[in-house]
């Protein structure tokens, strides 16, 4: 069994550690004896949606996001079809903002893919800190680091998780990220997947199900290092060990 993972515009949208998400998807398949192919899609290159099982849209600065949009808007319809057909799409930070209809930046306006009816607005104080979530996709707390000036309003969409510690989408709503079918948008760096292997496995399961038309059980992996790293962070994030693994 094999999955194909497309990394969209790594030359543009690659802020702190996005590469880690790709490595995680790839290795957690390989460690289980499954096959993985990673295709970096550079800006200007065509995206073959039919071939893709998982797509990653990473973060970039406001300026880089604007450049990325030039190329991406061409595929607006393809993204819609892909997501509607349960295609797995992970969008982090800048990529998350691009899922919406628009992003009103400090001194401009970036049109988004409009995949979801959400939007982002710039606000003066950046939200920069460790963040901890409770998410339906993971049995244990989801940990990461958020660093964003934009506030994302997700309307009636489902959030990715409830904020236990940190700011989240707007700093006020108490929720972080967005979930729609197999589209996951989030502000969490860390990178998200290596730090939170349950989320990675969830995405892999969904992608396998879509490709092979049936539920495929993933064999358990020894995730001790991930747990130790999470505990380090939980211990340092004001939350103490309150949210530690049970």
């Amino acid at each position: 069994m094999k999955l194909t993972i497309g990394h969209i515009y790594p030359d543009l949208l690659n802020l702190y550690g996005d590469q880690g998400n790709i490595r995680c998807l790839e290795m957690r398949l390989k460690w289980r004896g499954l096959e993985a192919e990673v295709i970096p899609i550079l800006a200007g290159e065509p995206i073959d949606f039919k071939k893709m099982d998982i797509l990653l849209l990473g973060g970039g600065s406001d300026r880089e996001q604007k450049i990325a949009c030039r190329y991406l808007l061409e595929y607006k319809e393809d993204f819609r079809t892909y997501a509607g057909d349960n295609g797995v799409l992970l969008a982090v930070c800048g990529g998350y903002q691009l899922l919406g209809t628009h992003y009103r930046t400090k001194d401009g306006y970036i049109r988004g893919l409009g995949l979801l009816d959400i939007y982002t607005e710039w606000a003066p104080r950046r939200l920069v800190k460790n963040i901890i979530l409770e998410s339906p996709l993971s049995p244990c707390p989801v940990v990461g680091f958020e660093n964003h000036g934009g506030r994302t309003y997700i309307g009636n969409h489902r959030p990715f998780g409830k904020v236990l510690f940190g700011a989240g989408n707007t700093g006020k709503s108490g929720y972080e990220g967005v979930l729609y079918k197999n589209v996951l948008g989030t502000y969490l760096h860390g990178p998200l997947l290596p730090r939170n292997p349950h989320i990675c496995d969830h995405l892999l399961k969904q992608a396998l199900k879509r490709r092979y038309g049936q539920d495929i059980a993933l064999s358990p992996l020894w995730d001790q290092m991930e747990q130790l790293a999470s505990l380090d962070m939980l211990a340092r994030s004001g939350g103490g060990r309150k949210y530690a693994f049970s």
Partner: protein
Amino acid sequence: MSGFRRILAVRCAKLTGWLIRKLHRGNGASLPGYIAGFLCPELLSSLSGMVREKVIVTMGTNGKTTTNRLLCHALEAQGKKVLCNRTGANMRGGILSAFIQAAGPDGRLDADYACIEVDEMEAVHIFPQLKPDCVVLTNISRDQLDRYGEVDTIREKIKAALLLASKAVLAVNCDDHLSYSLLFECPNPAFTYGIDQEIFDATPLKPGSRESIFCRLCGNKLDYSLMHYGHLGIYRCPACGFSRPRPKFTVSQITRKASPEGISYSFIIEGKGLGKICADTSTDAPYNVYNTLSACAALCILDAPREHLEESIRSFDYGNGRENTFYVGNSRIRLHLAKNPVGFQQKLSLLLKDPSPKDIIFQINDKAQDGKDVSYLWDIDFQCLAAASPVSITLVGSRCHDLGLRLKYENIPCCFGDNIEETLRSHIRQGTGNLYVIVNYSGLSDANRVLRKLQERRTL
């Protein structure tokens, strides 16, 4: 009136600095400055106005401290009196403290030159008072994201600062298109420097690990005919024609010489007005070729005296506590600071140049000065570590498991230590005798202290 305030501020600050050192509460590099600034807000402006010749500022993501210290060293060799924030305390407090240290109790300054490194984010607040005559811009690349923000934010801050000091002449690294393109946006007179020869390891970077390779002017992707590291190299925009110019100052005949003490770089620095400078350095790090070049360019631009320049370069200690070598028993211990992804990668390539078996200790902390976000570890290519003949890799620090997780993905075995002192001792006691220690900011002074202590005692 202002004279009285100035004297009061200088004296209070000097007293504070003395107390801090007496009570062993640090080196007193920043606090006195803050106190003086509070007592006399115009202090920096008036002290800086008393510098007899020139005020030289160095800024940029990497290479500030070395360049700044080399400038100071070269000017002192000419018999000049130079004030310098050589410890790298580059925020307002640290800069003021350096000025206060050079001032007498009468509040008057006695200095021919001021060599000051300035934090990129702080520059915009400091330049109006400091009024630099020359600004050396080493490079702009991504630093700790949580502290500095995206690379565009850093660049905007630098630009704003330069616009406030539009008379200052710039020495700009034109291999860095983010720095070079600033010349189109700022009115300052400027000179460029750059390297044409390939000296950095062409580490095969994955397409994703590169960044900032899009044209500042039109947004198209740049073509590179030579890539040094990060986004530095010889570039050209195929769409608008923006390209790396021929630098005014450059280096040639770069060679790496092997001697009993190790590898060292020597090269020729050339430029209009500079003639040919033979740089015979003691450094084994290619990035110091840039630092030496930028310092020479600045001295030439300002027409500072430089008869003893070659000698100064030869005798210059590039380490400054950020790259130190210690000897304890039969062990050689090399301590390095790595503070951002680009710097980290450069340190790893130093490991690769030493083929002998080695033990490696990494300390990863997440205090404010280190960056609270450790995800930068995923932008560093650790795969190359496997080729560095490590006998053991030990991780310490408050976020050591994050690096452990990163290494798990490269299938590189490692173990964990409780604290840096114990880990150092045990590796010196029973190691290969060739120990590399790579730490981030908050761990640096501790590691230096422990190693100095061990070296003085000569035993464990």
